[in-house]
């Protein structure tokens, strides 16, 4: 029976009773409790089920290393799965539920897996589900998906808010135990700007539980005196409930502050992500106790010895009434002494070592506690709860001797320094065989920009577990210099208990409690040839649970090294990756959600579009009207209406999002000749030319119309999405390759509003505004003129993307809305309409114009698209020219652009492939083309498409078969891509 003691508990306030709910049951705890201590105080040891065998799971630890006590917390939009009860502060009306069981925690069908455990060993999934093939899709995968995963997320949007904070520190101390506090003090005394983080709500770490005194003072007094001093310093920032999540390059660190998890309803961010740049980082992250591997070490009631005394001292909670302690070191005797002092029964201390003669064992003996050396636990008795342990000789095979009745087992396999943060950015470890632990190797610390170490470990995190040596180590970490060597730990490594246990026992020794990985699984992995610890980890799933192996990894790799006959340091550890413990997705996102997820770019006419039925479509960070919906109108109908209105009259489209880059200087023409595949230097001022831009790989990356403004100024239009990318591309070549050329570029995309006026009545509309001669004589196709229309300054470019008579009017952004309104007003008699991007897309497809991103995908060269006319043969060089001479680029079998028309007039599916009857060596259907653009054409009242087809231009009139999603095919004829006005008479009038 776990229960609340009548007195004691240094962290709880017995005057404050807090009601909470666990699995629908109303329970009571005290202020200062964690959810775990409150559950134990209510005799709720069973808190969950393991992942694979659904074995009953009890609380094992008292801190963030807890593998079992994972619960769903909260309700509705504030529900969160997989929260550790040991690090959840109790608050009034907390609601928690256990996970991974059906139908209930106490009775779970999935526990039948445990009976099958012989067949569910390491690599089970890989070996079992391969044959027969169809079983995977229809049987195995649905079954696994049903049973996989711990907890279920809520489907509602997160109701809380989160924030990021940025800070700088000369010294960042991670960990607020006595080593961290001392390191912070030493650093602060030198005048450094210090920040110190403590993951829990309490400063001082384990000292108040473990140590009789710190520098002659009661630990709590030393802690409060040090905190008092630190808080008075202007150069020190202390954050509790802040976990050091990760250490990164050049002193960058992430801290995860849980601001209001324990204060629900407070108007503050729930979590805060600290993004700190530190000159030096001191990891004072303490140590985590290791379990011992004996049969039945996973039965609820078996706990870490340190955790048992934590619950007694900190929370006044006893995990059991009669406890057996099992150990290979002196430290666990502290638990025996603590339990004894609290009036609890210690049935025995089972010590695997032949002798235990240190101070702590002697003190335990002097208190009358039975100490049995050279002994081991053969197996734990009990299912849902410990009822006793069978004792055996540690050196033997586990032949059971005496049975000791007990309701709790406190185990200690020694302590492992928390080296995660040291290791995140490249810090290396050394194996200390005497102390049986990996500790940071100061000779191979993470290094900063100057090549010097920027991380130092202090205290238990450095393998210096306690006492004056620990404080000296912390001072040395903060001030530099060497610390005196610590007292050697009194420990004998024990990786399997008993040492010669047979297969039956080894199959009941848990290494990873959450993922159900046992000693036998790791040994099997070794037998099957898994040499690398990283491979063995993934094969067995050891350390892949939410606790990431904080408890079991060292034990597991020791078992692996033993099975391989290799020393532990040769096997090594798996990689430590951030975050140290899981952090919320909300904290990572911070404020970046909803409207502020990314900036919204608005053209000067944005609000007009919104007021006139714009059906928005995202285009990069812009929004563009896909079409303008009239009341009751369907999207397709709106698009068709807009197209027919343009083809029959005149329409306006907001083209402000098109990229506009000015290229200027004496060498600008020469530069543009390198950027574009065709000549731009010989373009006459006042003229426009369509140009293609390729990467050095030869692939088409952008297209657009270039206008020559004056003798040394060109204006390059790019695609909407390409403006920033192409400007960067230009700057790369200008700054890094042709830096002696006298050229400047400026991205003026947002400085100009641009409106395309398209349709046979476009000229009538501009003439109605008046002020600029837009006749074909004064302003012929592919030229431009500057002036004013309706008094508004602008440039009119005679370019067309629709195939109709068209002017693109560019005016300073501040005039954009006025110009748009003037066009709408003046065009009423002409029936002017605004049209959206889909009408633009369809009209360009009817014309056979390519679209970057549709006809191109990063593997297409201009030659594939029938754009050879836009590639200069005279130029010695342009970006991409040499690549386009490579054998694969000149291969006549490359797929080339054609138009496609279905025989039945239907619309081809997007991205459909042209299939043949042939099969390749893998049995896959051989394809000979694919659809790049497809739509319904209102102009022709049928489906039209473009696509890339093998030998396409030579196969006009042939019929191909294209696949459809439903498995059928549809026939389409190869035609010219340009269906509408192939002679171009309509745009050049």
């Amino acid at each position, binding site marked *: 029976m776990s229960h609340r003691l009548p007195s004691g508990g240094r962290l709880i306030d017995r005057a404050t009773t807090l009601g909470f709910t666990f699995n629908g049951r109303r329970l009571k705890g005290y202020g200062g409790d964690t959810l775990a201590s409150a559950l134990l105080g209510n005799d709720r040891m069973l808190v969950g089920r393991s992942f694979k065998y659904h074995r009953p799971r009890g609380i094992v630890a008292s801190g963030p290393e807890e593998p079992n006590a994972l619960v769903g917390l909260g309700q509705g939009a504030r529900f969160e799965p997989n929260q550790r009860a040991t690090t959840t502060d109790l608050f009034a009306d907390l609601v928690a539920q256990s996970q991974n069981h059906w139908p209930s925690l106490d009775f779970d069908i999935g526990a039948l897996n445990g009976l099958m455990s012989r067949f569910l060993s390491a690599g089970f999934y890989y070996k079992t589900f391969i044959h027969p093939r169809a079983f995977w899709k229809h049987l195995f995968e649905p079954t696994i998906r049903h049973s996989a995963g711990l907890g279920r997320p809520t489907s509602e949007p997160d109701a809380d808010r989160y924030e990021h904070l940025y800070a700088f520190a000369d010294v960042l101390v991670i960990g607020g135990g006595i080593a961290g506090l001392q390191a912070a003090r030493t650093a602060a005394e030198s005048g450094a700007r210090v920040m110190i983080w403590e993951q829990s709500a309490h400063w001082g770490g384990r000292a108040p539980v473990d140590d009789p005194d710190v520098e002659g003072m009661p630990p709590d007094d030393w802690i409060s005196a040090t905190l008092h001093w630190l808080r008075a310093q202007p150069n020190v920032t202390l954050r509790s409930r802040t976990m050091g999540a990760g250490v990164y390059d*050049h002193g960058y660190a992430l801290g995860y502050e849980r601001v209001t998890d324990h204060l629900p309803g407070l108007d503050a961010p729930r979590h805060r992500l600290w993004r700190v740049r530190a000159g030096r980082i001191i990891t004072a992250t303490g140590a985590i106790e290791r379990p011992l591997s004996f049969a039945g070490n996973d039965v609820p009631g078996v706990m870490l010895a340190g955790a048992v005394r934590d619950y007694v001292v900190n929370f006044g909670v006893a995990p059991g009434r009669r406890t057996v302690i099992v150990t290979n070191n002196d430290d666990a005797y502290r638990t025996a002494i603590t339990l004894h002092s609290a009036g609890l029964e210690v049935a025995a201390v089972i010590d695997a070592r032949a002798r235990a003669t240190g101070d702590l064992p002697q003190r335990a003996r002097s208190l009358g506690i039975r100490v049995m050396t050279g002994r081991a636990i053969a197996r734990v008795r009990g299912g849902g709860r410990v009822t006793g342990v069978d004792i055996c000789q540690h050196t033997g095979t586990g032949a059971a001797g005496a049975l000791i009745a007990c309701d709790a087992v406190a185990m200690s396999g020694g302590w492992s320094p928390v080296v995660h943060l040291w290791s995140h950015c490249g810090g290396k470890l050394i194996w200390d065989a005497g102390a049986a632990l990996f500790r940071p190797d100061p000779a191979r610390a993470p290094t900063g*920009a100057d090549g010097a170490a920027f991380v130092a470990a202090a205290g238990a995190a450095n393998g210096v577990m306690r006492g004056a040596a620990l404080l000296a180590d912390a001072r040395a970490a903060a001030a530099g210099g060497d610390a005196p060597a610590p007292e050697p730990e009194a420990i004998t490594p024990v990786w399997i208990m008993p040492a010669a246990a047979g297969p039956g026992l080894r199959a009941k020794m848990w290494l990873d409690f959450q993922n159900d990985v046992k000693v036998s699984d790791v040994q099997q992995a070794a037998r099957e040839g898994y040499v690398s610890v990283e491979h063995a980890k993934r094969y067995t799933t050891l350390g892949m649970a939410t606790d990431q192996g904080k408890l079991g990894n060292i034990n597991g790799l020791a078992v692996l090294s033993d099975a391989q006959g290799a020393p532990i340091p040769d096997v090594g550890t798996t990689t430590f990756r951030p975050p140290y413990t899981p952090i919320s997705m909300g904290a990572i996102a911070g404020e970046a959600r909803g409207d502020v997820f990314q900036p919204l770019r608005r053209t000067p006419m944005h609000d007009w579009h919104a007021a006139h039925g714009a059906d928005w479509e995202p285009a990069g960070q812009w929004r563009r009207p896909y079409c303008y919906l009239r009341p009751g109108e369907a999207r397709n109908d709106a698009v068709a209406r807009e197209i027919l209105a343009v083809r029959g009259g005149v329409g306006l489209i907001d083209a402000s999002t098109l990229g506009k880059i000015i290229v200027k200087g004496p060498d600008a023409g020469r530069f543009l000749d390198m950027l574009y595949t065709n000549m731009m230097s010989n373009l006459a001022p006042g003229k426009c030319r369509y140009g293609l831009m390729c990467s050095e790989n030869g692939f088409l990356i952008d297209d657009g119309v270039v206008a020559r403004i004056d003798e040394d100024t060109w204006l390059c239009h790019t695609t909407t999405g390409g403006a920033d990318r192409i400007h*960067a591309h230009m700057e790369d070549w200008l700054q890094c390759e042709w830096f002696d050329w006298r050229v400047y570029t400026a991205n003026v995309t947002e400085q100009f509003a641009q409106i395309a006026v398209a349709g046979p009545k476009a000229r009538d509309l501009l003439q109605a505004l008046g002020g600029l001669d837009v006749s074909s004589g004064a302003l012929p196709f592919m030229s431009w003129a500057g002036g004013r229309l309706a008094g508004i300054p602008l440039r009119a470019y005679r370019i067309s993307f629709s195939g109709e008579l068209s002017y693109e009017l560019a005016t300073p952004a501040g005039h954009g809305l006025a110009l748009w309104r003037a066009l709408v007003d003046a065009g009423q008699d002409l029936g002017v309409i605004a049209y959206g991007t889909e009408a633009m897309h369809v009209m360009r497809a009817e014309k056979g114009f390519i679209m970057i991103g549709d006809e191109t995908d990063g593997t297409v060269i201009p030659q594939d698209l029938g754009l050879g006319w836009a590639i200069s043969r005279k130029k010695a060089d342009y970006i991409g020219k*040499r690549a386009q001479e490579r054998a694969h680029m000149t291969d006549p079998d490359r797929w080339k652009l054609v138009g496609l028309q279905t025989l039945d007039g239907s619309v081809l599916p997007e991205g459909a492939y042209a299939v043949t009857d042939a099969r390749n060596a893998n049995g896959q259907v051989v394809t000979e083309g694919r659809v790049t653009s497809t739509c319904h054409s209102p102009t022709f009242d049928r489906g039209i498409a473009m696509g890339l087809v093998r030998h396409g231009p030579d196969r006009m009139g042939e019929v191909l078969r294209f696949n459809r999603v439903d498995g059928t095919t549809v026939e389409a004829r190869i035609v010219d891509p340009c269906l509408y006005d192939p002679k171009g008479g309509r745009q050049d009038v």
Partner: protein
Amino acid sequence: MLILTCPCCGIKADETELAPGGEAHIKRHGPGSSDAEFEAYLFTRANPRGVHFERWRHAYGCGKWFLAARATDTLEVFGTYPATSTAVPDAILSRIRARRPDWIKPDRIKPA
């Protein structure tokens, strides 16, 4: 998250301000080059565990490209220098040699 000092504006720039541009000191080969030369120019890149020369752009700062010499294994930065440099400045080469006596200078890295 590296910190690199932009040699153009002098800012100690956080990596979030920077855009990476791959290996530095690659000679462009255009029309007239052999397939082998062009392949080497376009595709062959060193991927050393150790001293490396890289292109970076101070994209969310002054906008200038620059070059950096750093160690990919220890993250040590030996120096940054202008993108217009066809050779590595002596001071940076000396620093590399002082810190990495075993370093063998690749042929394409020219001393100033």
